[in-house]
């Protein structure tokens, strides 16, 4: 779950409100802690504070948990995506004010993993039992090298598939049947080739911009920008070189429109570009931005496998005084049964593969995208996700490469200049 535009705006307001909310939270947190610490004992009332951003879809489940466990009361505090993380970081640094349970998105995960002392190690509470319940890549994301530290209980995943406009493909003389599309575009080179054909025939574009194509390809492999010892390897990383070369070779078929902008919405509605790579939580964006394209879409596998975009963990900050109760709540909340409930209430996609055969998922259909088996497609994509090690500086470096591709697309730099700039700037920012 990652909403960039709300993140941007949220950050603006958030930074203004940060001071206020910090004071408010710090106050509430410390009071609860002191009053509860003196009590102890099972029968006593325990309050668990939970920080999440909108979209987890757990509100009803939390109420159910309270009902089934009378001695637990849950205080759910929702804030915008960016605010939750910044408030959490501030609270951890300040040493007070952190909740018992906090959501952490994968984008912030490695930074938190670098500082394990700020979190309860779930391995101490039986976390090892969770391994087989969740997708392997989620487990690898949430654990350290030695697999003796687990930062949180995995929540959702964002398996990537490719949506395409059947009408535009047909006009360009490309196949429209999902199986044929997947077959013809089984590699990225074929995909770009098809894009050029589309561009020649219809003058339209294949995708929105180079940096999204780059990220989609990068996410399919490992290592990306850092090796597991956090050495900066973008310059020689095969995955990165592969993604960069493919992206720069596709300049002519890119519409140069950034995702999460009003331009993107208008572009989708106008059929400016024929394909979109998207995780399940982004399906709604297309429906909202381009309601008139109902039925013109179809969905198939991405070239060369899947990829992941978004997904979180429920962590237990070390400041929390009730790790056992918090662990019980977090594991219950993200157990397969509950994840299925969340999914059925149109929440995010589950991270527990045993659910993927459930009818609720297998039979998830979506007429907007002309699929009666959309859930099965996503389930298949979820199991194809490979774990790509990121490291705490991944986002910083990846953003530089994305900006570099933007500058190529805007005509401000040649690919060689842009590459050099990205590498130099990355080395400079990491090195200081």
């Amino acid at each position, binding site marked *: 779950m990652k909403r960039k535009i709300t993140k941007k705006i949220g950050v603006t307001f958030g930074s203004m409100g940060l001071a206020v909310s910090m004071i408010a939270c710090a106050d509430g947190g410390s009071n609860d802690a002191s009053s509860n610490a003196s009590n102890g004992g099972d029968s006593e009332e325990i309050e668990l504070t939970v920080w999440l951003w909108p979209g987890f879809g757990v509100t009803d489940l939390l109420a159910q948990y309270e009902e089934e466990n009378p001695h637990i009361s849950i205080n759910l505090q929702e804030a915008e995506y960016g605010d939750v993380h910044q408030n959490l970081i501030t609270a951890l640094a300040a040493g007070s004010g952190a909740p018992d349970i906090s959501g952490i998105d994968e984008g912030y995960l490695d930074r938190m993993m670098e500082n394990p002392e700020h979190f309860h190690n779930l391995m101490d509470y039986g976390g090892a039992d969770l391994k087989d319940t969740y997708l392997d890549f989620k487990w690898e994301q949430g654990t350290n090298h030695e697999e003796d530290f687990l930062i949180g209980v995995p929540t959702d995943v964002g398996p990537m598939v490719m949506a395409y406009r059947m009408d535009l493909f047909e006009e360009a003389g490309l196949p429209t049947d999902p199986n044929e599309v997947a077959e013809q575009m089984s590699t990225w080179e074929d995909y770009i080739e098809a894009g050029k054909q589309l561009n020649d025939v219809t003058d339209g574009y294949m995708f929105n911009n180079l940096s999204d194509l780059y990220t989609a390809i990068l996410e399919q492999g490992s290592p990306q920008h850092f090796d597991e010892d956090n050495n900066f390897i973008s310059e020689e990383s095969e995955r990165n070189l592969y993604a960069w070369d493919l992206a720069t070779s596709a300049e002519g078929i890119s519409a140069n429109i950034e995702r999460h902008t009003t331009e993107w919405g208008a572009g989708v509605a106008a059929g400016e570009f024929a394909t979109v790579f998207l995780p399940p939580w982004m399906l709604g964006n297309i429906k909202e931005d381009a309601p008139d394209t109902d039925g013109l879409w179809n969905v198939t596998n991405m070239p060369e496998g899947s990829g992941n975009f978004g997904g979180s963990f429920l962590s237990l900050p070390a400041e929390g005084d009730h790790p056992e109760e918090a662990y019980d709540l977090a594991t219950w909340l993200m157990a397969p049964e509950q994840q299925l409930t969340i999914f059925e209430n149109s929440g995010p996609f589950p991270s527990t593969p045993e659910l993927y055969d459930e009818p609720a998922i297998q039979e998830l259909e979506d007429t907007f995208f002309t699929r009666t088996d959309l859930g099965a497609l996503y389930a298949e994509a979820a199991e194809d996700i490979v774990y790509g090690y990121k490291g705490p500086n991944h986002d910083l470096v990846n953003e530089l490469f994305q900006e570099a591709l933007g500058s190529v697309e805007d005509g401000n*730099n040649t690919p060689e200049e842009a590459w050099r700039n990205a590498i130099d700037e990355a080395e400079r920012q990491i090195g200081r």
Partner: protein
Amino acid sequence: MSENNRLLIKGNKYNQKITERRTGILFISPFFILFGIFGIWPLLFTAYLSFHRWDILGTSEFVGLSNYINLFTNDPLFWRALGNTFSIWIMSTVPQLILALLIAFFLNQQFLKGKTFFRLGIFVPNVTSVVAVGIVFSAMFGTQYGVVNYLISALGFDIINWRGSYFGTHVAISAMVLWRWVGYNTIIYLAGLQSIGKDIYEAATIDGASKLQQLLYITIPMLRPIIIFTVIQSTIGGMQLFAEPLIFGVGSNYQGLTMTLYLYQEAFNRFSFGYAAAIAWMLFFIVIIVSLINLFFSQKIKSA
């Protein structure tokens, strides 16, 4: 009166003085306590931080002057941000103040009907949320589907890549600032205009001065202190430009990156709090220098 009593009275007097002093201190203390917590302490802590390398969650490491050395010798982005800030500041302030002056002059004319309506109307943009302004203007300055490019192409010119070029991004951000602040300056100028006596204009009219001559030789010279005030206000605002470029996007060549935005990104996106603290102190010095230059010119203008 016995010796004892006298001493007692003396002692009381002494006590009362102390009590009064204490009460006085107590009364003014809220300001100093708050100022200490939210003013002095962050300032000192920022100075302390600027000599460290700190990602907020981990431990901080003393690095001496290295943050400052990096800033001067090895940070193209900082200087680019500095250049952008000044460029956007000039592009938004100069037309903004000229426009505000003209509108104020117009609104102050005798023949104009419905003055209150226009005055209110010109000020409305200023009370609009900056985020809303940013989002709407971002949509208007869209490259493919923006209304500005639509008009440009309707007039037969080439469309401009607003997000992709220096010129485009600076114009778009300046336009947001301009739109929001013209009304504010207009109202201030209007207040200044109304303090200029009507008799001067009447005399000028009798002497045969045109409206333009009245503007150039009466209005502007008499508004001088107010113009200085608005220039200083716009300078402070321009140096702190943040929300507009944040929402519009800095662009792939960082052409929309302003100093405060760079500071913010270092601290909250890249978690280099020590480096961000060093930037903050550099900003502090730059603002001091700009203020001194401002002061110098306004003294000159005042005495001219």
